[in-house]
Every structure is written in structure tokens, then in C-alpha cells.
């Protein structure tokens, strides 16, 4: 029943495209940060450094070998690797200008990708020169920053969804005002509220769909462009945006259209209930 005026999709579709673009970019950031935060949090929680602090290099090497042997013996810990002494010396060299690192009693460092600080401390209780430290503790400020960024991007995505609902409500009211005469005729001829609702929300859904498709296309271009730039500098965004995340990004515009239709229906129902 094509009764409403045929109008080219205008401001409403453009606004939908803008909010959809904003929401998709924010959602992509949220999803990417989510997996990044997980990775960093995992690392922060489980990455362990075992230090052997002994001025005697022979005894230090012996204890370090003992530590690695014990770690290999116990199941549940990831592979333990001693950080090469030259690497440790290179790390400290910039801070001891004028002094040879060879002259310093640097500790032996053993890196563990997976382990629990408390359990390891118990294993090496009988080795007084051994210190177990959670390396990830240094990453916790970064994790907190990522969490904050995630909260902000989620907020932007939700704000965009709320803006869409408001825009759709306004669009529905404008459609009602524009089509008041026609809708009055339909009512007088016995059209039900449901039929009127279908007519007006159908048009809003079409315009919203068009806008959301436009927003999706632009958002995908931007996301893929950023992904390619990050790949150029050696950061794979695809590892942060999983297949599920891509699916979510593709489905979000549909959800946005759903929000628009629901908001429009709410506004229309409220107006129709006021009619005689």
C-alpha cells in the first residue's frame, strides 16, 4: 500500500550514516582494545622474572641452572629461558656510563611466560639468592589506560545509538506531521494503527537502512585503511579484530536500524493514541 509521499532520502539518512559511522568506529576500537587488553592482562598476570642475585658469578650460574632445572621439572609453568648476560648488560649500559657492565655483579635473569608468583616463591624457598617478581605488574598502568579507552569508546558507541533513537523519533514525528492528511484519510477509511505504523516505520526503516549502509561502507574503508597502516608498522590489527568482532561490526548497522524503527514506533504509537 504505497500511500505516503515518495521523497528522496534526505537529512534522516545522512544523520543515520553519520551516527552509524561514529558507532562503528567506536565499536571497532572497543573490540580491538578488548582483545588487546586481554592479551596484555594475561601477560601482566602470568609473566614472571626469576632473579638470581649473587655477586659470585660461578655460584650465580649454578643457582640459575638449578632454577631452570626445577622449573622444567614442575608441570604448569611455561618454558623458562635465561636472559643472555650480554642482553642484561646491554639493558643496563646506558645507565652506568663510564663503568663496564662486566665489573658489576648483575643478577641472572630467567624469564617465564606463564607462572604464578606465590607458587614459584615456594619452590625456591631454599634458595635465598633467588627472587621471584611479577613482570606484568609494570604493565598494569597500560592495562588501566586501555580499560579507560575501552570505556570511552563504548560510551561513544552507546551515545551514537541513543542519538539514532532520538533522530528516528524526530523523523517519525516529522513524517506524521508531513503525512497527517493522508494518515487521517487512512484512519477514516478504517486503517488500523498497526497498518499506519507499518507504513510509516517501513519508510523510516528504508531510509535508516540506506543511511546505515552508507555509514558501514565508510567505516569499513576507514577501519581497513587503519589496519593496513598498522600492518605496515608491524602491528596486525586482524589479530585484535577476530572473526566474531568483524561479524559484530557487520551486524551493528542492523541493530542501529532496529533501534531507529523501535524509537519511531514508540513515537508513532504515542501520537496515534492521542488521535480520536
Amino acid at each position, binding site marked *: 500500500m504505497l500511500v505516503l509521499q515518495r521523497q528522496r532520502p534526505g537529512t534522516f539518512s545522512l544523520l543515520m550514516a553519520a551516527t552509524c559511522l561514529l558507532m562503528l568506529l567506536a565499536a571497532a576500537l572497543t573490540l580491538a582494545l578488548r582483545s588487546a587488553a586481554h592479551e596484555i592482562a594475561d601477560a601482566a598476570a602470568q609473566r614472571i622474572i626469576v632473579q638470581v642475585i649473587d655477586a659470585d658469578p660461578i655460584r650465580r650460574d649454578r643457582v640459575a641452572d638449578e632454577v631452570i632445572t626445577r622449573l622444567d621439572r614442575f608441570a604448569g609453568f611455561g618454558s623458562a629461558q635465561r636472559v643472555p648476560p650480554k642482553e642484561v648488560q646491554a639493558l643496563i649500559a646506558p645507565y652506568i656510563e663510564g663503568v663496564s657492565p662486566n665489573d658489576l655483579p648483575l643478577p641472572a635473569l630467567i624469564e617465564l611466560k606463564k607462572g604464578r608468583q606465590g607458587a614459584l616463591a615456594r619452590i625456591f624457598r631454599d634458595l635465598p639468592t633467588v627472587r621471584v617478581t611479577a613482570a606484568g605488574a609494570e604493565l598494569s598502568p597500560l592495562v588501566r589506560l586501555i580499560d579507560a579507552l575501552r570505556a570511552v569508546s563504548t560510551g561513544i558507541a552507546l551515545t551514537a545509538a541513543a542519538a539514532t533513537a532520538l533522530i528516528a523519533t524526530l523523523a517519525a514525528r516529522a513524517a506524521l506531521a508531513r503525512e497527517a492528511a493522508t494518515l487521517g484519510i487512512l484512519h*477514516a477509511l*478504517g*486503517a488500523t494503527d498497526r497498518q499506519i505504523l507499518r507504513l510509516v516505520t517501513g519508510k523510516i526503516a528504508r531510509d535508516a537502512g540506506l543511511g546505515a549502509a552508507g555509514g558501514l561502507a565508510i567505516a569499513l574503508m576507514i577501519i581497513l585503511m587503519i589496519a593496513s597502516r598498522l600492518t605496515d608498522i608491524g602491528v596486525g590489527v586482524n589479530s585484535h579484530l577476530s572473526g566474531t568482532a568483524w561479524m559484530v561490526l557487520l551486524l551493528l548497522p542492523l541493530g542501529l536500524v532496529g533501534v531507529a524503527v523501535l524509537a519511531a514506533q514508540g513515537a508513532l504509537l504515542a501520537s496515534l493514541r492521542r488521535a480520536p
Partner: protein
Amino acid sequence: MAGIVQFDNVGLRYGTGAETLAGLSFTLAPGSFHFLTGPSGAGKTSLINLITLAQRPSRGIVCLFGRDTANLPRKELPELRRRIGVVYQDFRLVPQLSAFDNVALPLRICGMAEREITPRVEELLDWVGLGPRAAARPATLSGGEQQRVAIARAVITHPELIVADEPTGNVDPEMAARLLHLLEVLNRQGTTVLIATHDVHLLRQMPGASIMRLAKGRIDDPTGALRFPPRVSEA
């Protein structure tokens, strides 16, 4: 016998002003034919709005098809409206639809299949002399043609009640007679007809019809005793 339309002490007031309609009590029996006359501003259109459920009364009881409209849930109103064919004084055609689609609209609202709609609409458009103009939009039709489309739209569903506000105001006498004949035929088939008009010639063509005179929001003859047209000067 229960009336198709029953008004009991009905009043209608817009805002806080005086009552536009006051103390209306009358019954339109099934299959009856009525004219509603009265000077401009007497409340004819307001009365038609009450009958067609475009407005609710401020007081009193309006019963349509035996149902008290005041206590009717909103979702049941469309069903009652579909049983009424209305011809508006200003036609109220949908401007973006063709004559064909305007006439087909009530059938589409009722959910009738397109294959049943097409022959029915074409036949009626031919009957009102608008077959060749079926694809024309209202803006390209003359006033008389628009009025005929409005009448065709009102009768296409064979409603139980037809309410027409000045249905022959824009057509030539020959077409007016044809349209009145159509309403008469429908009335003989059992449709109740109420025509609001100033056209005394129309009143004379239906001597058996009851006449309700509305003046200052009140009906002069709610009993329908005035079953004769008013005197017309032959000048």
C-alpha cells in the same frame, strides 16, 4: 428495532466554548435514507464527524451498529469505520495516488487480494465515467471528477452506512442524478444513507427520504416526521 446510528442526548463542545451540538437524540434505522440540512455553521460537519468516529462526543451516547462508541476499545474502531462509507465535502483524496488507487484504498485496507480489487474498481470507475482517467492523479482531475472518485471510494466496499457531505456540490445535474441513483440503489439493497446537503433539487428527487434540519447545533425534527422536501421557489 436497533438503529444503525443512535444518538442519545449527545453534545459536542470544542474547548471551553459553547456547545456546537447540543442534546441530539435520533436514530437512523437500517436501510433508511436521510437528508441532513441546515445553514452553514449549524453543525452538520460536526455531526458527520461524530457519526464517522472522527470525533468523540463531549456528552451523551453515540451508538453505531449497536455498539456504544464511548466504551469501545480503540483497536475496535477501525472495524466500525470500515462499515461506513464517507464522502467528504473536500473529497480527501490521497494526492499521490491515482484515481484507481484512491478507489482501491478501502479494499486494500481490508486486505482484499489485488485480483479481486482490479475488476471491482474498474467497473465502478467506468460507472462514474472515469474509466479512461483511472491513472490520473487527483491534482489533474476537475472538481467534479474528484468528487466522483470520492463517491466511488465511499461505496466500493458496499458499506452498511454511507455518509456524504455535499456529495453533488461539484458535479453537473446529470451526474448528480446518476450519483443519487447509485446511492438509491445501494439504499434499496439495505444500505443506510445520510446526505448532508444544501441542494434542494436533490431533496426533491428523493421524496421518501427523511429530512433532519440542523440549526444552531440542534435538530428540528429528530422524529423524522418531516418527510417532504422544503418548499422551493420556482423562480
